[in-house]
């Protein structure tokens, strides 16, 4: 395994609202290695975006507050770094791209201005040199007729092209880590494949590490080396990508894969899909037992409804937070589906 670039340790982020304290991220730990891609997958509200925003402290405070844990990036703890020093890291050493490139690009500034702004904030290049660099970057991300695009406004570009511009801005300062939050969710499938390929290319060309946040198991399968599955603010499973899809252990991961309609599945028209009953718990007052227990078909009357299962290593590199992982279930009976 290559060198560790980012190490998140027991991260806890909470939102202090009128209704109470929302435990959005509740004790999340993981490592990101140089040149590798970590996929964070989970459904809306599981804490995957809050985890990413906590890393670079982009959450509005209040209501959000990092109440515990460490984010170690190249030896420095980002949770305690002064804001001034963090500003130097954001955009130059850690870059981020978001789901909707229309809202993350400024509609009143030309594309050229938005790229050169970032370049000049983090380097000593002159205006002219920054412009030349901007054209190089746009060519690198595959924007056709890059030089003539520089003076265009974002609305003149399609969704896929805008996301290419965002990627150009993100890589402009050669970051060591790129965080991509649902980078292809707003795009059509044919464009999605191109953007995912581009991200992988950029990672290899610039020797970056990436964190890709997504709700889509297909996207994870496409781009990740290592995967963590989040549920209700916690990591419930972590494994290398092939291992996760070959031998999913957590009942939630299994159910999620089972609930996904498959494109290569003859006869699915005349079958019901395997749904997961119920919905995730309220994070205002999360249960102190296994958070998936209420929806889990293996839970009931045993340890997992008494206390919170630990995240434990079943096989080298494969961690799971469940009393009923697949490989230990042989022989145990399924609870009758509700």
């Amino acid at each position, binding site marked *: 395994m290559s060198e560790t670039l980012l190490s998140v340790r027991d991260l806890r982020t909470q939102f202090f609202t009128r209704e109470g304290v929302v435990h959005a991220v509740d004790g999340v730990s993981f490592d990101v290695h140089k040149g590798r891609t970590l996929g964070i997958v989970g*459904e809306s509200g599981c804490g995957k975006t809050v985890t990413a925003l906590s890393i670079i402290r982009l959450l509005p405070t209040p209501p959000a507050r990092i109440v515990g844990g460490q984010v170690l990036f190249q030896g420095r703890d980002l949770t305690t770094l002064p804001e001034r020093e963090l500003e130097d890291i954001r955009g130059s050493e850690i870059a981020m791209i978001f789901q909707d490139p229309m809202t993350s690009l400024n509609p009143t500034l030309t594309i050229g201005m938005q790229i050169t702004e970032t370049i000049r904030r983090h380097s000593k290049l002159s205006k002219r040199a920054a412009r030349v660099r901007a054209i190089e970057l746009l060519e690198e991300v595959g924007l056709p007729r890059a030089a003539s695009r520089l003076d265009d406004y974002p609305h003149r570009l399609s969704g896929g092209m805008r996301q290419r511009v965002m990627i150009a801005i993100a890589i402009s300062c050669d970051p060591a880590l790129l965080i991509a939050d649902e980078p292809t969710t707003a795009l059509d499938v044919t464009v999605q494949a191109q953007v995912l390929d581009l991200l992988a290319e950029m990672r290899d060309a610039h020797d970056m590490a990436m964190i890709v946040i997504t709700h889509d198991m297909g996207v994870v399968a496409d781009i990740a080396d290592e995967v963590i599955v989040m549920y209700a603010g916690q990591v419930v499973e972590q494994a290398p990508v092939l291992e996760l899809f070959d031998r999913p252990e957590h009942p939630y991961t299994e159910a999620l894969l089972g609930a996904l309609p498959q494109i290569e599945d003859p006869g699915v028209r005349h079958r*019901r899909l395997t*749904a997961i009953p119920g919905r995730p718990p309220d994070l205002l007052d999360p249960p102190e037992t296994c958070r998936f227990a209420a929806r889990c078909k293996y839970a009931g009357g045993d340890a997992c409804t008494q206390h919170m299962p630990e995240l434990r290593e079943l096989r080298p590199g494969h961690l799971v937070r469940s009393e009923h992982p697949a490989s230990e279930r042989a022989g145990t009976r399924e609870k009758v589906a509700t």
Partner: protein
Amino acid sequence: MTEPLVQVRNLHKSFPIKKGIFVERTVDQVDAVIDVSFDIGKGETLGLVGESGSGKSTTGYCILQILRPTSGSVVFDGHELTELKGEDLRRLRRRMQLVFQDPFASLDPRMTVGDIVGEPLVVHKVGSRQERRARVRELLDVVGFDPGYTNRYPHEFSGGQRQRIGIARALALSPDFIVCDEPVSALDVSIQAQILNLLKDLQQEFGLTYLFIAHDLAVVRAMSDRIAVMNAGRIVELGEAEEVYASPREEYTQALLQAVPIPDPRKMRERKRERRRLRSALAEQ
């Protein structure tokens, strides 16, 4: 296919592009739907897939006459809808309903769940107040929504629950035909399967006919007997679902199917290599 309930012939819809602030003049037009024809059989689901801007939702709206087609014909159970107006159209509209994509935007936030579901009954003057109330509870029960919550407001519920409210409303007048416009694309995977199963169950129970519009090819496969693939306003391929997925004839359909990410890292790597090979071959030309 069974006997057709809906027959669409040479449907065309264009939108004018206007310029000018005080005096608007039409400078050009966009052809959103071009020469679209298909039948939907009684009790059948026709899946309509395509990328954004392909004209699939516009086609759905033109069938329901929410948008009036520029030309072409839409026949519903023997009635030519494009020529109908006023009360005649209203009478037939009871039998055709729409389920929307976004359960957050499509429900009036100031109406209670009971009022939302019961509104079509009021508009079409069905039953007494008492009967309507009973019908609303029955409908909510059918879609798996606790009828005890009729006095609550939509914001109190999750996306999946809201979509159930939208479906209950669509069922209120016992329609024969429902256009489902991206009914699950705003929902999480675990909830999505619940709603797809509900739509399947309702179809069985009430013999409903669906036009199922979606961009997600896996979701469309799970729901449809036949599939129509749209691109740039036209239907490029139409056939039995199993056939279209197993052996797509059109290049566009093949490209679309190839691009769908599937939860299988080995297959994805294979595809990635294939795409890279194609790109470098193109670059060398």
